[in-house]
């Protein structure tokens, strides 16, 4: 009977249905979680993360009075890296969930480029909108929304990610609501020999604490004319696996303006990187660090103020790590500083490959002469972008991200050498004899 009560600690004042979008309504039943959820408007900087609140004067076109700092200004090499692609025009540090919809609507990548409805999958509470569009069929709705022009599709949504996107309104259990993740994780499990994986019935409660995040914090691309949202996981989650997938389906995101290489852009592969770190291996979930438990009166609740754990070290880390808060911070910063240094070596190498390719093109080198270097450019920029786009600055998988960087440097320099007529030598038999890939 205490059990009974224990199962239902929250006093339900309103009935929540599968079409209750407004978080404020959910908040009537769960005021503590709602109050914390609203705090994702806060902006605070950490050494490499968080975000800076830059004031700006709102305009007709862009009503935002505060934005996050521009990463293109922080490191102009990114502009060269993405020449010819929308990202080279506007790319900012990401901030709290509260901003996801407005930041997408207002980015110059949307204002000045044609984008599909697909974009909304990860920037708004789309669950109910998809259900409606599909007449009760989530996948139909998903496909319909992908095909729409962004301007139209965005009219169908009004909230950033909301309670209903992660929770079942009846039981409050976590659930995956994004078709792209359902398909992606099924393809991944299939590659591991698990057939017909259905995430909402087969995942453990602990796994769900990461899977709900994996609906958005992942690498993706838009497949075909129907602009279907697809995660490139059918060969695995490692850099090599995803590249192999793109090569096989012959996908490119854009042609680099200066080198002519069929380039790939990687985005926020937090889920993929985390998967290759020691924390995932130890069963530590995204929510453990980004939504740690918090005591509110007589209850422990999950901190729905999703943010950098470095702004919340005591709860996020010290449950498991018995070192001082300062020490935990500097451990992270040591890992990030090391990553940053290697990343800069790779970034400089990429800049030199691009300028060499540019010169070669201008001086009228033949397609055949450029091809090997362009292939190295495609690989290098994708690998570098993968670790660059993991917003933890190397923390989610310190070893794996550095391993990838050694390869980036090798690809860039080999590209430069190819332009100077060096023959790409056979890898020594050793080079592939061991190593994590395929393990």
């Amino acid at each position, binding site marked *: 009977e205490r059990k009974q009560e224990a199962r239902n*600690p929250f006093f339900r004042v309103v009935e929540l249905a599968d079409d209750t979008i407004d978080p404020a309504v959910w908040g009537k039943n769960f005021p503590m979680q709602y109050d914390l959820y609203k705090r994702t408007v806060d902006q605070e900087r950490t050494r490499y993360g968080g975000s800076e609140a830059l004031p700006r004067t709102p305009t007709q076109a862009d009503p935002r009075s505060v934005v996050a700092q521009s990463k293109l200004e922080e490191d102009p090499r990114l502009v060269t890296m993405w020449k010819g692609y929308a990202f080279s025009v506007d790319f900012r540090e990401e901030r709290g969930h509260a901003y996801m919809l407005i930041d997408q609507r207002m980015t110059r990548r949307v204002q000045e480029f044609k984008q599909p409805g697909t974009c909304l999958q990860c920037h708004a509470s789309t669950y109910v909108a998809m259900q409606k569009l599909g007449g009760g069929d989530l996948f139909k709705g998903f496909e319909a929304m992908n095909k729409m022009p962004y301007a139209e599709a965005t009219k169908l949504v009004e909230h950033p990610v909301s309670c209903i996107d992660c929770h079942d309104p009846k039981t409050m*259990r*976590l659930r995956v609501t994004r078709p792209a993740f359902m398909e992606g994780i099924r393809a991944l499990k299939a590659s591991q020999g698990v057939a017909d994986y259905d995430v909402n019935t087969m995942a453990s409660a602990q796994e769900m604490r990461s899977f709900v995040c994996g609906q958005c914090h992942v690498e993706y691309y838009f497949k075909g004319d129907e602009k279907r949202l697809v995660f490139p996981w059918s060969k695995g989650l490692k850099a090599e696996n995803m590249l192999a997938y793109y090569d096989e389906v012959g996908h490119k995101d854009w042609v680099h303006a200066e080198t002519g290489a069929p380039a790939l852009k990687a985005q926020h592969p937090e889920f993929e990187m985390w998967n290759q770190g020691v924390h995932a291996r130890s069963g530590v979930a995204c929510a453990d660090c980004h939504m740690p438990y918090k005591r509110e009166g007589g209850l422990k609740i999950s901190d729905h103020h999703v943010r950098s754990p470095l702004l919340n070290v005591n709860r996020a880390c010290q449950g498991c790590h018995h070192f001082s808060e300062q020490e935990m911070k500097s451990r992270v910063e040591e890992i990030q500083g090391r990553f940053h240094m290697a990343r800069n070596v790779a970034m400089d190498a990429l800049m030199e490959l691009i300028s060499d390719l540019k010169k070669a093109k201008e001086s009228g080198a033949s397609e055949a002469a450029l091809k090997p270097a362009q292939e190295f450019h495609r690989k290098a920029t994708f690998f570098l972008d993968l670790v660059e786009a993991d917003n933890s600055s190397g923390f989610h998988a310190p070893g794996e991200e550095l391993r990838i960087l050694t390869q980036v440097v090798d690809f860039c320099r080999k590209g430069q050498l190819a332009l100077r007529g060096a023959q790409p030598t056979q890898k020594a038999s050793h080079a592939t004899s061991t190593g994590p890939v395929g393990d």
Partner: protein
Amino acid sequence: MNILEQVMSEHGYITPLLLGVPLGILLGLGFYTFGYARGAAYMTDDPDACTNCHVMRGQYESWMKSSHRKVAVCNDCHTPAGLAPKYFTKALNGFNHSMAFTTGRFPDEIRITARNHRVAEASCEKCHADIVSGINGVRHDGEKVSCSTCHRAVGHAY
């Protein structure tokens, strides 16, 4: 681990049949080592009893420094609620540990068994059911949050 314990870890101690029979054997065998290894310790709740075995001293000493020293003794966490299950577990552990101790066949860094881990995990709710009712409230039974992933040191550091 011995067959009996495997049986137990699979079927728990629900059916009286499973319970009664081995309990007899256990107590029999148990007593055989009692004198030798003071397995009788298992019948009391006095933590000092556990330290009749020096190999338990590590836990004992760090328990003395732990947040739970004043609020929970070993058996609060290492035996299930309810008299029968409690004494069954005591007998089972008393038997295993006495045997292990007598034969000396156990690792230097002792590891909790799967069964006793479940017991320890469940014990938290004896006292903290309310505070964790929220985080467990959105979980199916059998999917309860594992406390020891974050709080493994509350009883003793190691």
